[in-house]
């Protein structure tokens, strides 16, 4: 997603790259669970299990969230490139 794979990294750099990738992915998963819970779960908690409707809402939400993530990431990169610089802020 944030493509590394450049040549001749030191051992520490290789570890740090994978470490960072794992953290980024884990954080994305945590946010996805949070946002999709807000979209899909009944907050009265009359049931402790996911209903069928909630489960399939979560599944679809995860696909859409992932897609939105990719889309937004690409748009930002394009707009940054167009401006020819780092983050506009």
């Amino acid at each position: 997603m944030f493509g590394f794979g450049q040549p001749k990294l030191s051992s520490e750099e290789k570890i740090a790259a994978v470490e960072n990738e794992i953290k980024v992915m884990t954080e994305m998963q945590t946010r996805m669970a949070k946002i999709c819970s807000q979209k899909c779960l009944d907050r009265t908690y009359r049931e402790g299990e996911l209903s069928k409707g909630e489960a399939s809402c979560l599944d679809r939400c995860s696909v859409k969230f992932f897609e939105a993530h990719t889309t937004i990431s690409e748009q930002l990169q394009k707009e940054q490139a167009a401006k020819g610089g780092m983050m506009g802020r």
Partner: protein
Amino acid sequence: MDGLTNSEQQILADRIQKWQMKQFMGIFGNLVDSCFTSCVDDFQSKALSGRETGCLSRCVSKWMATNERMGERFAELNAAEMERQQRGGR
């Protein structure tokens, strides 16, 4: 874990585990806050009622089920994305 030696993998695993401990405290805190916010609304008494305790318990169960499900979905989506990138998408 592309191309890491055994000892590098060990270092990585240790760091990730340490990081996860810290993350977990935050995630646990958010869980308590969210279930408490949804389930507890009566401040006339100072002990949790049976209804509130039940609600908290179901809220936690549902959260665990949600997390598990989302973890599976995320792994699938991530694997598909990796493959897409390796086939030269992007």
